[in-house]
């Protein structure tokens, strides 16, 4: 490490300028995908929307 004598940090060296605004495509798909999945999941497993309850799910699993 060569910066023992520095006084102040040079903040411009903390962030890359050429890729400053990039969002990797794979990550963006994950981000949006999980929001959509979250809405779907909340809808599917909320008793007031679909009638699903943890009790019914348990009873069904006991029948097997």
């Amino acid at each position, binding site marked *: 490490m060569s910066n023992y004598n520095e006084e*102040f940090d040079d903040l411009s060296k903390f962030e890359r300028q050429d890729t400053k605004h990039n969002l990797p495509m794979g990550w963006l798909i994950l*981000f949006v995908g999980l929001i959509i999945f979250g809405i779907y999941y909340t809808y599917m497993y909320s008793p007031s929307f679909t009638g699903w309850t943890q009790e019914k799910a348990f009873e069904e699993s006991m029948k097997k």
Partner: protein
Amino acid sequence: MNDYQYDYQTVKGFIVSCLFWGVVGLLIGLLISAQMWNADFNFGEYWSFGRLRTVHTNVLAYGLGIGAEFGIFYYLVIRLTKRPLVFPKLARFHLWLFNVGILLGAWSLFMGYTQNVEYAEFEWPLDIAVVILWVIFAINVMGTIFKRKENEMYISLWYIIATIVTVAILYIVTNLFIPSTLTKSYHVFAGVNSANVAWWYGHNAVGFLFTTPILAMFYYFLPKSTGLPIYSHRLSIISFWALIFAYLWTGAHHLVYTPLPDWIQTLGIAFTLFLIAPSWGSVVNGYFTVEADWSVMKNKYLTKFFIVGVTFYGLQTIQGPSQGIRVISSLIHYTDWVPGHVHMGTMGWVTMVICGSIYYIIPHIYKTEIYSEKIANIHFWIVLIGQLMFSITMWITGVQQGAMWKMTNPDGSLKYTFIETVLANYPYWQMRTFAGIIFVVGMLFFLYNIYMTIQKGKKEAAAKLATANA
């Protein structure tokens, strides 16, 4: 360039204090891991598992974890705002109060005083002290940020602000207890509401004591120790806001298949799964930063602490949300899988990044080089092996335990008695103690290296002073 000198005394004090509490907490951890497979390691009522378990979690979370965070936050705040703390003497008082607080807290748990809320065990007089301590810290850090000399607010400062604001809310709401005597109090929330608040707190303690503060360190020390700038500012900021927005909704995933209303569980699980995205935003940002020049992994010894640390953060934030899903929760919840998960986070991510940060800070404030890069490398590999062994043995035995609980005979009766599932854990519990010893040995290399670096720095400073006077 200018006469400005940073004052690092309080930072040093917190680092030394957190290392001390770290040793205490780790040794108690080793003892309670042995108590799991041999009851003879319980010595009387004070040194029994029931009391020591909370001493272990509180001393490490608050003594080592928060202690390091206080010190490193003071370091980061003065560096990123380019000015001294607004109240340096208050920070010194904060350091003393912190050590007295941890001492009293550990003592009270030894004595058996507890609120019985996980990670919020301290009784009400100590809670009041913690709030005062946090307010002192908040005034100093927020005041310094308001009066900053550098216009730009780097991402680490955002994570520091999030930590300060959210922990204050979490701690106060969860610790709304009605005192009945000096050492006993009752939660204002009853039954399932109490459980819901307790896990809203319990999960967000992980989020705002073990995630946001460590990310503040990660985003500062990764560019500092590699010389490589962070890949994307936008990715940092979007991940930050998404993380703190989503985290506070997720506590209910600890209460899957309980009397908590189904819709709250479902909502908690949905937000928990979403958390993968902002967590991985920081992971991806770290990888892409180092991708500019992977040779730093080899040439700059600190890089691997941050990159391996963030890798465990990435694994942790896939494993954690998966555990929230109902079908997985029903297999592994209440088994030894859970300590395996927790310790991957605390030993693989939190401690790794804290150690990396201290390795950077100590030589920097003593104006010297690290005593030995070789010892740092040995430390790195030993703690990595210890941590992996710990986590993996617990995952194996956790799945075994969950499966044994569920197995039924053709007539529908349970195949195993409870005691059989406990006995099956024994070899893994013994392996865990062995893994713990390896981890602690690794940490001793770290302590030795830091101690020698401080001695070296003092000697060099004395020599410099002598030549200047000659």
